[in-house]
């Protein structure tokens, strides 16, 4: 681990929604992590675990029914501190996002170039000729010939539209890119092209230093091939986070281990298992470990005590009683 300051630090992020019939849904329950320049982290978990809500919260793009607490620190400044006032100067400029399904969200009657230039014009970064020049530069950066800027979305294939969506997110030269399921609807060959692009962007962004990437996906192998680190989310919490290799070879949370076991591998001979049950509802108080009803290694305190977050090795942490000798001994 270097001594450099992280590019972005998330501290105890909570997101909850007031429900129409009273009560609240606690979608994100205290997420903390930090990322250095050029780092690629995968945020993985089943649908509804809070991955997308986490990154929308970091962007300040949640609907008005959502309440957010915690800090998102960029260059020493908490961009959540004063709500929209403190986020908006950084949104797209420093922290940017490729939305899920972005490749299908282009306006069909405007050219790709016009749509990529739009955020630059809105942010007063460039206009007219300069903006067009920047659009060509961005398209080249994501592997599309610059003269395609005046084409319409229907003239692009799915993979090219996804590249264009990434180019649009990079328009204001952000430091951090949040990519929500960027390859989910794509074929495996096109997926490989997009993943290669994300790796390239984080390694060198033009002459500048690397882009920091958070890749949100349900697909563990994609994270394994592309990311340095992974954070596994369950019921609104990060239940395990660590280097990719550590997480795969030495998972310290049963959910991580079971997720890998549920994923077939091309050359694997091991039996593929399913994880019984379903994630808990988040609109009520959870007692004990949220994963307990589905876990294959339950110990005594799991039913009553919420597990502590324990640092197991530098950069490797998990939220499970099995790693906590004090909790298990106290019970026995």
């Amino acid at each position: 681990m270097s001594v450099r300051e992280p590019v972005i630090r998330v501290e105890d992020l909570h997101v909850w929604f007031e429900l129409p019939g009273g009560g609240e849904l606690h979608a994100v329950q205290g997420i903390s992590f930090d990322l250095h320049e050029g780092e690629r982290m995968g945020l993985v978990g089943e649908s509804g675990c809070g991955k997308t809500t986490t990154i929308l919260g970091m962007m300040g793009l949640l609907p008005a029914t959502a309440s957010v607490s915690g800090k998102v620190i960029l260059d020493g400044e908490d961009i959540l501190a004063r709500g929209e006032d403190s986020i908006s100067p950084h949104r797209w400029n420093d922290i940017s996002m490729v939305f899920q399904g972005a490749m299908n969200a282009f306006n069909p009657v405007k050219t790709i170039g016009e749509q990529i230039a739009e955020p630059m014009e809105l942010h007063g970064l460039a206009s007219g000729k300069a903006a067009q020049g920047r659009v060509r530069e961005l398209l080249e950066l994501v592997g599309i010939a610059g003269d395609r800027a005046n084409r319409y979305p229907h003239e692009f294939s799915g993979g090219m539209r996804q590249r264009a969506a990434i180019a649009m997110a990079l328009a204001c030269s952000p430091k951090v890119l949040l990519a929500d399921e960027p390859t989910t609807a794509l074929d495996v060959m096109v997926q490989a092209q997009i993943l290669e692009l994300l790796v390239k962007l984080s390694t060198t962004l033009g002459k500048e230093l690397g882009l920091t990437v958070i890749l949100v996906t349900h697909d563990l192998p994609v994270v394994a091939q592309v990311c340095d680190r992974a954070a596994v989310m369950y019921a609104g919490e990060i239940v395990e986070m660590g280097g990719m290799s550590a997480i795969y070879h030495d998972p310290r949370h049963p959910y991580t281990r079971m997720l890998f076991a549920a994923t077939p591998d091309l050359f694997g001979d091991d039996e593929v298992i399913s994880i019984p049950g379903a994630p808990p509802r988040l609109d009520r108080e959870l007692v004990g470990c949220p994963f307990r009803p589905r876990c294959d290694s339950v110990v005594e305190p799991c039913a009553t005590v919420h597990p502590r977050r324990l640092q197991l090795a530098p950069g490797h942490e998990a939220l499970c009683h099995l790693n906590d000798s004090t909790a298990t001994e106290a019970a026995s």
Partner: protein
Amino acid sequence: MSTADRIDPRLLEVDGLVTRYPISRGLYGALARRPKLTVLAVDGVSFTVGAGEMVALVGESGCGKTTTAQTVIRMVESDAGSIRFRGTEIGALGARELRPLRREIQIIYQDPYESLDPRFTVRDTIEEPIRVHGLTGSKAEREEKVREAMERAGLTPPDLFIDRYPHELSGGQRQRVAIAAALVLEPKLLIADEPVSMLDVSVRAGILGLLDGLRKEGMGVLMITHDLSTAAHFADRIAVMYLGRIVEEGPARDVVRNPQHPYTKALISVVPRRDPDERTVPQILTGETPNPVNVPPGCRFHPRCPVAEARCKETDPELRVVEGVDPVHRAACLLL
């Protein structure tokens, strides 16, 4: 199911299947006498599915795998080739003769959020095929069949699910309802079109294990999937499609571990692995699958092929046994 049925290799035999879709020229195009264009969705596909066998049809979007399945069940009409089911040619049967056979070939779809009627309870959904096929019997008999199908599909105990509506079920449970509605007719062949791609990873293995169990009971399963890892794990044989053609076909393990066709090799090289220390060197093909309106001459893969030679532009290779590999492992490449 008797042993003889189980080893019958000829449950489904598809030979030289061709399916084209016409493209509308529009009024102007017709007046200007522009040439009629067709999409060659399936262009000479041959394969078999035996009883007790799971065959995976693998390929990227637009390669024709779903059209192949739809042609087999006669949802789409073929333009050439033969489809034999248990020895009977069904490609030319009329609707009336086809009807009893429809019971024996059932299909389940990708999206259990869309394939179930939201106003039908689980009972209604599973009972409907019985009524449609006029197998009514008494109410008690139908109820018995519905519950039996639910148990086979893993919706147990049936009492817990039978009166529920789709919105009260998870994705995995919905897919099990769709499977139960297929099983209630006691089909011999089940076609599963991307049966788990809409489901969470945690429940996929359950659905695939269920299909695997049906296969072991003697059912033939034709699985359409884009996921090579799933195919490698669960299928007996894999057929890789590219632009309307099967380019490689053989035992699942062989195709994955010893691919012969350059397209299969490239495809396998880009499948992400679970183990971060086994990062593959992806052999990324440039561009995307060409439009099946303009199938390249010669070998259809030659414009993207990393090892293509001059002759590949002229000769369209046939699917044939490759020397030095398993005799039932075939590939369509001139260089082999």
